[in-house]
């Protein structure tokens, strides 16, 4: 059928290597979901009455749920296009990798602003804090207890995910599954340990600028850890479902890149906020 030079045959080929996406409702749905999430969050933070009554937290929850659902449906389509429809040629893969790298760079800039805030307050502490950092009256966390364990967990997870990646490239299914599983175990242990730290800390986010900068920096890092864990978990389930090949496993590679970024941010956090700042 494809050998005849008819109009029908020619529609079976595209003479350029890029992926022209078919119309999709997910971008619009995502933008509406984000609108609900952000405006609900602003209303909740500022104590405005909202149509659903109560504190407004329910609307934030609805916004968050719809955003996650819209993202899931969108990414599901990308997986279908890449893994099952063959739309992801080498050039498309390169473009996607560049996109992931640029996204991570934008997240780096977000964390730069967070660290800027920390250094602004901590390098020249005001007289209200007693002109010292940590401020007078703050019982800091010993960096060489749980935070050091967390550092080891994240560094180890970086090693296990590298082992998993090499296993995928070598076609070693068992190694790939075990490596990714260990990475997820370390990631979840990290989150649990941070939870324990948060509950048992001697200060809260309301305890002056120390509390604000500590929980802002570690809190946003924690959110990124949870996102990174979910990212790797999705790659893990796709690996189990035989989606990945030894040459084409972009979702897995993107999750690994994101995980390394999360690890590096933690190292900066450990050295500046936990160690120098204590």
């Amino acid at each position, binding site marked *: 059928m494809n050998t005849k030079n008819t109009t029908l045959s020619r529609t079976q080929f595209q003479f350029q290597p890029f992926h022209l996406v078919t119309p999709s409702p997910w971008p619009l749905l995502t933008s509406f979901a984000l609108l609900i999430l952000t405006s609900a969050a602003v209303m909740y933070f500022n104590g405005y009455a909202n149509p659903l009554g109560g504190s407004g937290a329910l609307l934030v929850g609805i916004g968050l749920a719809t955003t996650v659902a819209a993202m899931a449906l969108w990414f599901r389509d990308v997986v279908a296009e890449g893994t099952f429809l063959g739309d992801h040629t080498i050039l498309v893969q390169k473009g996607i990798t560049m996109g992931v790298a640029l996204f991570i760079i934008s997240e780096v800039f977000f964390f730069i602003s967070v660290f800027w805030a920390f250094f602004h307050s901590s390098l020249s502490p*005001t*007289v*209200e*804090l*007693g*002109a*010292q950092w940590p*401020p*007078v*009256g703050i019982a800091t966390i010993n960096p060489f207890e749980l935070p050091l364990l967390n550092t080891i967990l994240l560094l180890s997870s970086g090693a296990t995910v590298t082992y998993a990646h090499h296993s995928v490239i070598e076609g070693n299914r068992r190694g790939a599954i075990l490596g990714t599983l260990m990475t997820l175990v370390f990631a979840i242990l990290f989150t649990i340990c941070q939870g324990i730290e948060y509950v048992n800390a001697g200060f809260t986010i309301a305890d002056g600028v120390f509390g604000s900068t500590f929980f802002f920096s570690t809190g946003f890092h924690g959110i990124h850890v949870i996102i990174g864990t979910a990212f790797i978990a999705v790659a893990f389930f796709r690996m189990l479902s035989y989606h990945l090949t030894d040459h084409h496993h972009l979702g897995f590679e993107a999750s690994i890149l994101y995980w390394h970024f999360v690890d590096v941010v933690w190292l900066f956090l450990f050295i500046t906020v936990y160690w120098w700042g204590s």
Partner: protein
Amino acid sequence: MADVELKTAPADFRFPTTNQTRHCFTRYVEFHKCVNAKGEESDDCMKFAKYYRSLCPGEWVEKWNEQRENGTFPGPL
């Protein structure tokens, strides 16, 4: 006109900028450290007293005196 000696706290190289808040705070803390070490009416401490009284706004001194009485003063006394 009688010769009146006018002087203020000396320029301190630790506080080179226009904002002398930290200078005032340091002198206030220094005076009270001296008083805690040497006693209330010691003459050595009067030097520091003159410095902080020249540098610091009255409202701040009052507020810090209150905080010291309450035990909530943030400085290392």
